[in-house]
């Protein structure tokens, strides 16, 4: 039938431009990363050779990689606890018909539109040893004279960066929870109120939103780079390195592009597993609504 043929032609005409761009600049590089991870390419020239699984074996001998993995997991856990927990609390408070709800919403959401670089810079000032907000507040409360360098101490650097990052991510978690709360039909909410539903029961109602927030938090923690780059650069002594940071340092500081590719392959596989689990959960969430 002519109409069917027309449809096919239009499909092709409309899909080829986006798929071509996406294919050349996203899909093909993805597979190239796998290829380079089996080579010892140094970033320049065509002088490299196939080294088999050497890069992947090197990963297990690389204490910095192990450090980066541990830090990434810490970051993920913090992402699940901090922005998710705080975001849920904020959403429940704001959703209780408090006066000025929209103003509160904007205030908590504002950091999302700042760049990670600006967020990092703001928090560098908060942690500034001599006049930063944190030490000033601590000295005010304790009456002491602390000049603690939060970002320069191995024990605190990673957590200091995670706190800054959480400050930005909380607003995002909050609006997703709010969307989940308002998606519940209002007559249902009324029934809950009449029957004296507890806050716990309401929390269970936002389970679909929780799936989204947790998954997004975990995925975003894998991408955490900019804020880390400006605040600590992975230091001191690589104690705040994450996988994304380690990959950058190996590839573009030391020009170990083959090894860097191997790290990016690991990063990809972790992301893939999370995205897979997320999409499966989303399907279940959709079924609940249907």
């Amino acid at each position: 039938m002519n109409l069917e043929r027309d449809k096919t032609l239009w499909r092709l005409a409309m899909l080829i431009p986006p798929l071509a761009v996406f294919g050349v600049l996203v899909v093909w590089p993805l597979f190239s990363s796998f290829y380079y991870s089996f080579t010892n390419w140094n970033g320049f020239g065509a002088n490299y050779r196939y080294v088999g699984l050497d890069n992947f074996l090197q990963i297990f001998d690389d204490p910095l990689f192990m450090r980066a993995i541990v830090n990434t997991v810490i970051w993920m856990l913090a992402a699940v606890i901090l922005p998710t927990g705080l975001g849920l609390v904020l959403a429940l408070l704001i959703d209780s018909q408090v006066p000025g709800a929209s103003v509160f919403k904007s205030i908590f959401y504002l950091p999302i539109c700042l760049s990670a670089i600006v967020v990092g810079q703001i928090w560098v000032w908060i942690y500034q040893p001599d006049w930063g907000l944190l030490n000033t507040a601590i000295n005010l409360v304790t009456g002491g004279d602390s000049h603690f360098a939060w970002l320069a101490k191995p024990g605190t650097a990673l957590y200091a960066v995670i706190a800054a990052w959480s400050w930005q991510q909380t607003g995002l978690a909050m609006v997703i929870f709010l969307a989940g709360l308002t998606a519940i039909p209002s007559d249902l909410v009324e029934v809950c109120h009449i029957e004296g539903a507890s806050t716990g029961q309401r929390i269970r109602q936002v389970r679909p939103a929780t799936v989204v927030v947790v998954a997004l938090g975990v995925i975003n923690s894998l991408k955490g780079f900019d804020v880390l780059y400006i605040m600590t650069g992975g230091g001191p002594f690589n104690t705040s390195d994450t996988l994304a940071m380690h990959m950058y340092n190996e590839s573009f500081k030391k020009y170990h592009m083959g090894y860097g590719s191997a790290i990016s392959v690991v990063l990809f596989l972790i992301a893939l597993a999370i995205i897979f689990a997320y999409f499966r959960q989303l399907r279940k969430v959709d079924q609940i609504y249907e």
Partner: protein
Amino acid sequence: MNDRYASATTSPSFNPWPAAIFVCLTVLAVLFLAPTIGVLLSSLKTTQDIALGKLWSLPTSLYLDNFATVLTNPAIHTYLLNTLLIAVPATAGSIALGILSGYVFAKLPFRGSDILFLAIVAGMFFPPQVILIPLFRLFNGLGLLDTLWPMIFVHIAMGIPICTLMMRNFFATVPAALREAAIIEGASEWQVLSKVALPLSLPALAVLSTLQFTWIWNDFLWPLIFTQSDDKRTIMLGLVFLQGQYSVAWGIQGALSLVASLPTLIVFLFFQRYFIKGMTMGAVKG
């Protein structure tokens, strides 16, 4: 008064909860705003005042020298212009491509189109580090390193997942009968898209423009990898670079951060609703 509080307000005893929640939120809001206020205050103070621990007091007089220093620095003009030259075409390009693919997935589905759609949308969630090295090599081979082109291309490509997702969801709400009527009257798919579906999708375009512009403006990783010379830097890269130059001039750094954030703050103030809608849609409707 809202129904949900009807029972609370009619009860004879005083209900402390709404007041407690308000106080609680206010305290949290002040804590949340403190970092941003700190930058604002620092930008209005001399370095000496900040070092003397007067950062957190209100300025006694209006000191604008920091902003004057920032706004008269020609390098910053270049950074801002570069960022605009990347953000505008990349935003437009990614949305244009998302319109095309979104229309096919919504109105012309085919066998396996669901899987293809999911695969594209999944691209939204991958850490960009995964494709960093091959793209570096590609643009190096094309002789495009240290120009603005790599950022434009990459942002168009990386924007395709979110634009496809958003446009498909929006086109899906356009009634199928509208399309069929137009087709029967002899309109081509292109005419249906441009004359029927697109005019109905202006809110989606607003959502995508605000999201994409903000992300691209705030981006740091790609220009960090793809540029080298000062006159090719974007504003976020320039911000980091100038931090070294003004290393103890905290007030100037504060003014710099504010100037760099101004476009996205304006977008946020005026298009907040679209912005939030886009963020939640992109996250939830995967």
